[in-house]
């Protein structure tokens, strides 16, 4: 079902040199929102494709400009990165606003009221400060950013709330760091084993299977850790998110997600890309199934008048920076 929508829209996006991709994006999000049901009723996506197209054009102009400048004069390109970095919190706020204002449930739009000044603290000041704390502030920054995003969101008049317990956030990252270090030791041991077994470090050693295995182990370890951290963090965030009297419960499991990622990659590889829609649906389904709303009363929200317009540039620029060209 989604395969047909995906492939037709992908082809149209390619033959129109990306112009149609804005419409494709709207159709994709409408499809996923419309099939995500809460209490039997779907979410809605309202963005006008033309707004997204404008945003994309600006975003790609910036990206291409940076790429070309990077080739011609790396110095000038880095001089351009600086204002972009300074503007980044503004872009993010607009992106959140656009996404929220164009999403709805029960005929009522979501909204995002985050202040630019707070965005500067969460997305520029704190991340820049992290290296000076030897990375120790990193979990705190993750907490600040997520709280900024969630606690400034609302559904109509109903405000979302999020206060992450700092200790629990740190626990996730400390456990991950410990696990990764232990894994590093294993990988290193197998590397040393290979080096000793392979005799003097000559050309042959570099390509010996032991070293290859060590590198693979290392990569696998990093991959597993990244997924585990993300899962634990996601669960923590949802389990502490409130919407008026309601709470949420997220039951994502690292093992399940790893399995999904691995089989998705395999499926996409085997089908030379044609398995992408299947992979997307599986992931979206698992995420939706793992998230429950814990009602603290009747599910009622009221609309808040006004404030529905938001430009798409922010959302698209941050998308393009992430290389999310997906249709």
């Amino acid at each position, binding site marked *: 079902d989604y395969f047909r929508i995906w492939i037709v829209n992908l082809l149209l996006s390619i033959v129109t040199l990306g112009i149609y991709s804005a419409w494709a994006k709207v159709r994709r999000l409408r499809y996923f929102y419309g099939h995500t049901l809460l209490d039997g009723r779907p979410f809605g996506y309202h963005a006008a494709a033309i707004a997204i197209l404008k945003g994309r054009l600006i975003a790609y102009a910036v990206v291409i400009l940076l790429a070309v400048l990077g080739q011609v004069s790396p110095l000038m390109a880095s001089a351009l990165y600086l204002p972009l970095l300074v503007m980044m919190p503004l872009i993010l706020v607009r992106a959140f606003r656009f996404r929220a204002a164009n999403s709805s*449930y029960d005929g009522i739009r979501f909204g995002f009221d985050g202040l630019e000044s707070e965005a500067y603290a969460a997305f520029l000041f704190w991340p820049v400060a992290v290296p000076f704390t030897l990375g120790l502030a990193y979990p705190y920054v993750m907490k600040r950013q997520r709280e900024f995003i969630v606690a400034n969101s609302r559904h109509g008049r109903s405000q979302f709330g999020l206060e992450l317990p700092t200790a629990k956030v740190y626990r996730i990252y400390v456990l991950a760091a410990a696990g990764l270090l232990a894994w590093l030791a294993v990988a290193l041991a197998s590397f040393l084993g290979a080096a000793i077994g392979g005799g003097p470090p000559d050309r042959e050693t570099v390509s010996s299977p032991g070293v290859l295995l060590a590198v693979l182990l290392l990569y696998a370890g990093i991959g597993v850790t990244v997924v585990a951290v993300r899962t634990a963090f996601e669960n923590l965030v949802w389990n502490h998110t409130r919407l008026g009297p309601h709470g949420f419960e997220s039951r994502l499991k690292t093992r399940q997600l790893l399995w999904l990622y691995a089989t998705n990659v395999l499926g996409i590889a085997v089908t030379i890309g044609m398995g*992408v829609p299947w992979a997307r649906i599986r992931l979206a389904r698992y995420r939706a199934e793992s998230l429950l709303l814990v009602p603290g009363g009747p599910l009622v929200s009221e*609309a808040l008048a006004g404030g529905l317009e938001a430009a798409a540039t922010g959302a698209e620029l941050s998308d393009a920076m992430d290389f999310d*060209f997906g249709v």
Partner: protein
Amino acid sequence: MTGVPATYHDGQTSRHWPVVVRVADGLVHVEDAGTARAFPLAAVHLEPRLGTLPRRLDLPGGASCLVPAGFELPVATSAPQRVERWVNELELRWTWAAVAAVGVLGLLWGGIVYGVPAAAKVVATRMSPALERQMGRQALASLDRIALSPSKLPPERRAALAVRFDSLMRAASPDADYRLEFRASPAVGPNAFALPGGSVVLLDELVKVAENDDEIAAVLAHEIGHLQERHTMRHVLQTSAAGVLVAAVVGDVLSASSYAAALPAFLLDARYSRAFELEADQFAFTLLDRTGVDRANFVRFLTRMEKAQGSSKTPGWLQTHPGADERGRAAGR
């Protein structure tokens, strides 16, 4: 027109209730048990159809109705709406999906095999040489720091090889301006490579392994081929362009696990690299013929190198260089 069942949202609260929507006399009637509302057709907006999803009918004042997918308004639609209706027709049919799949795969394959290399060639030949020289200088400087040491060849040997290099360069192109750099590196072993901007680095180890100067000349001719065809720049351009192409298709799904995305990038990279090697070989063969050196020298040297490294068991499509036998066959043609 008979009415269709729908769900009404007032847009003010999250309350919702069943209604019947019906179009008559240029008005949209929304009726439930107690009340009947009517809106002019021009004031309502119906979401384009998408599969079997219920569609949202926006009413004036923020209210909306979810109507069944098949519901249509009897009004002339705007051009974008007609386009989306047509897209929806395509999306509903498996035959069109199959056509689209063939189209996408064909464009992807054609783009990667023909489009990207052709475009990269055009762009690379227009790139400023100063930039390439800059790239080459930086590359050599960092190689000198991590892997290379000064050459231990006697000066007269170096001078002889430099003369050989210059004559090859003149034969390749009268306005070529390339330099031969001598280095040593036990870690890298017998090797030579071309850097963007016109330098060929020749390692002492290769000079030692070669049985005569014609073999060295053959290798140098190959590296001059890389320079003449601007392979480094084209390689950089091609790999990034192909990466964008692949990202456009698989997009966000693989970026979730970014090193899964690195695999196709690596395979493409190796594929392009093999093509460049063969192109440089071809260039070298013509150059050797023109300067009166037997092509067999090149093949002989490659075969010896491959034997010395132990014929690799890595399958061809994973390697950045084609096997010596394949390159030898190309020499025979």
